[in-house]
């Protein structure tokens, strides 16, 4: 898998696993051990989808009626 920030290419398991905020989703956060960026990873396909910054939620909204909550 390739890090979208520094280009580091190593097996998925060599990107440090941080956590998955949604257990029922395949998007997790891993960390590139070269540039230390937090990355959203599609675990099913083994690709980085985006770098993750403060306030970002690659898993999407909370479950439930968050649409109402945010209105």
């Amino acid at each position: 898998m390739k890090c979208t920030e520094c280009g580091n290419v190593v097996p998925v398991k060599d990107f440090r696993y941080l956590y998955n905020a949604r257990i029922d989703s395949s998007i997790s956060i891993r960390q590139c051990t070269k540039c230390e960026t937090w990355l959203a990873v599609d675990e099913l396909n083994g690709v980085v989808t985006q770098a993750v910054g403060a306030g970002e939620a690659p898993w999407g909204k909370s479950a439930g009626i968050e649409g109402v909550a945010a209105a």
Partner: protein
Amino acid sequence: MTQAALRDTSVDVFEKNQEWWWAAEKKRSTRLDYLRKAIWKKGAIGGLYAPGVKVDLERAKLHTQKAKEMEASPDPFVMKFAKILAHVLDNKTIFITDQAQLVGYTGSLPHTMAWDPSCASILNEEAYNDPTAIPDPVDENQQVIREICNYWIGKSDLDKMMPVFDMEDLMKMLSGSIGWGVPLARGGYSNKDYEYIMTGKRAFGDIIEELDRKIDEVDAEVHKPGATAETARMYDKLNNWDAMKITLEAGIRIAKRYARLARIIAENFEEDPQRKEELLKIASACEQVPAKPPRTLQESFQYDIFIQMMSRNEAIEGAWPSRPDYYHGPYYDKDVNIDKTLTKEEALDLVGEFLIRAAEVCQFKPKWTREGLQGIDGTWVWTMGGVKKDGSDACNDLTIAFMQAARLVRVANPTFSFRWHPKVSDEVMREIFECIRQGLGYPSMRHDPVLIANSMHWHGHPIEEARTWVHQACLSPCPTTKRGYQPMRMANATANCAKIIEYVFSSGFDHVVNMQVGAETPDVATLTNFEEFFGAWIEQMKTIFSILVRAVNRARMLAPTLTPRPFLSGISERSIESGLDTCEPSLAQGNAWITAFTWVENIDSLAAVKKLVFDEKKYTLAELKEALAKNWEGCEEMRLDFVINAPKWGNDDDYVDDIMLRCLDEAAKFSKVLKCPSGNNWPILPENVSGNIHYANIVGALPNGRRLGDALYDGGVSPGPGLDKNGPTAVLKSCGKIDHITGGRAFLLNQRLSPTQLADEKGYQLWRAYMRTWADLGIDHIQFNMVDDKTLRSAQKDPEKYQEVIVRVAGYSAHFVDISRKTQDNIIQRTVQGLG
């Protein structure tokens, strides 16, 4: 006179936008605003204290210096210890915060954390190794810390305990895998005999007189002709009483130091006449309490602060059991309603300041505490409402004042927990709802009739005593009576229960600490049916609970001699009467419980195994074991199968709910096999604090679909975040299947609600209807988050702008910006339930 805030039209705008923290800033008085902003945040973020907060070396130096001087003293240990405590109080730096009306702090300066070096050497290492909290100049102070650490090696409480514990059990507990805490009488949380010390009938001076009488009486007795075993026991009583007296006298002296300081400032430095008057009032209060009973609300709060300060001088306290509306209520009524010496606004200022004084309390604590209680120093869960001993409603005007003050000052800690019963007035319920709606995350709601019955069932407390209950920590009730109160709850009886199911797959070997911790159950791949699998689960459960309870029992039995509590004994009726240390098991009814962190992972995992392995035969246990050993690497489809296609707790699904009941039943049966030194039971209490984050990288992959590193569920009987798919009533129905009286000690339930949906009167009625269902189902606990994703994500981006946004973590609340990113994301992922 209070300086009231000018009504600002922006308040309406903020409230309309549900930006309660900005509205509160505008609404609170100038004094409260100043005091609120003067707080140094003492909770850790993740594992580190906030920048600027430093270990207080003064207390450690005073304690160590006196201990060295006392080494050659012929005094028995309890008296030496009392003299050390007195020395600290006599010599510690004291200060009065500008604009404050209440005084007393554990450290020497507002940004410092008191460090007690005599509890455990391995905890002292934390001070030595801390990357940010060593005060300047760092090099010089590292030398000081080194010398203090070196002195206490072999002398600290834990070092003294080690030779008399089972070393293997101890190592398992302190490995960080299954336990959370330390089995010491001076490192946990102490309730108090409030019925003795806080009802206005007596104070320290009265107790000292009583002690003098007892000492004189017994001293005469032991010198009469004759000698028996009882004579020999009387010597210990005399020593204990002497030690109690030393600490109480020291308590009176430090109060007088504050009084003197207040007078010095008032008479020599303060030019503002109003402030001068306030300082003289502080002086008068400190001259009155704790020597004599309080006369006013200010004195009552001051008395409470002194008691807590002194308790923290003696031990590391991780909680603040309290029933402030009940014990301080009569003084509020007297000052505001009868004598009218205080207006409601002035009283509100005092109440708000009392919350602030409590919020700033801090003692330097080890990593497991900081990570498990992120954002706070300890769980100051203050118990509100409930009933009196005769069963009538105990709510009063101060109950309401506390709710109102909480909304103004917006501290995360203390946090309130309200003892609901059917006779609570609508007025009080509205105040409670307003706190929840404004995003405080508290009060949590407790079902008082259920919990009173629970106390009677598990520990045999008589009903009048059971009715006095306060939260000993986050959830567990404890009476405040002579025999019923629990002097020290050792957090060590806290189990990381996710390890139970993990160890079924590893035959008890823990791959994170590289140690055989659990039972050596058979290779999971050899188990042929669910009953065998469940049998292995039971064995692991019993093994883990036993390891923890054995250590606590041992520590409790040895506490009176090895780690006595002379101050706590000096405010406990049973110790004054008997001459024995308050931790003496024979004096106590017993109120033990095992906190069960990370409980629901077991239920969801068992259900997943039952369904996908044994019912549908889609996978074998060998395949599952391998996938878990690989942390689900390369097995994402399988992992999702275990998450999505196996029933989950919290959806009113009997398949998994029955498993919950079975697990609780087994734990409850075993709870009655385990006995505390007072001879009482050890029921379990599922809840988490932020242990679900602390243990995230310690618990391995599990059949519920988690990987090593994922936050565990948020605790108690709360469903996994996002896994409760069938709405709020389904969650309540699942929880309602548990018998909250006999099934365990208490059961934490987090729910997240929509602030938009619950706006206005309609929102209140929706919530009331929901709470009626909760009450009818006999569920003992519930607590709410009511803040939207947008606010929380904005707070992640710009934390400086959202300092007073509060979230309910688990058994406590914290400011959202004061918890780690992983914790924040975990809270955001909780399902937002729509009511109605």
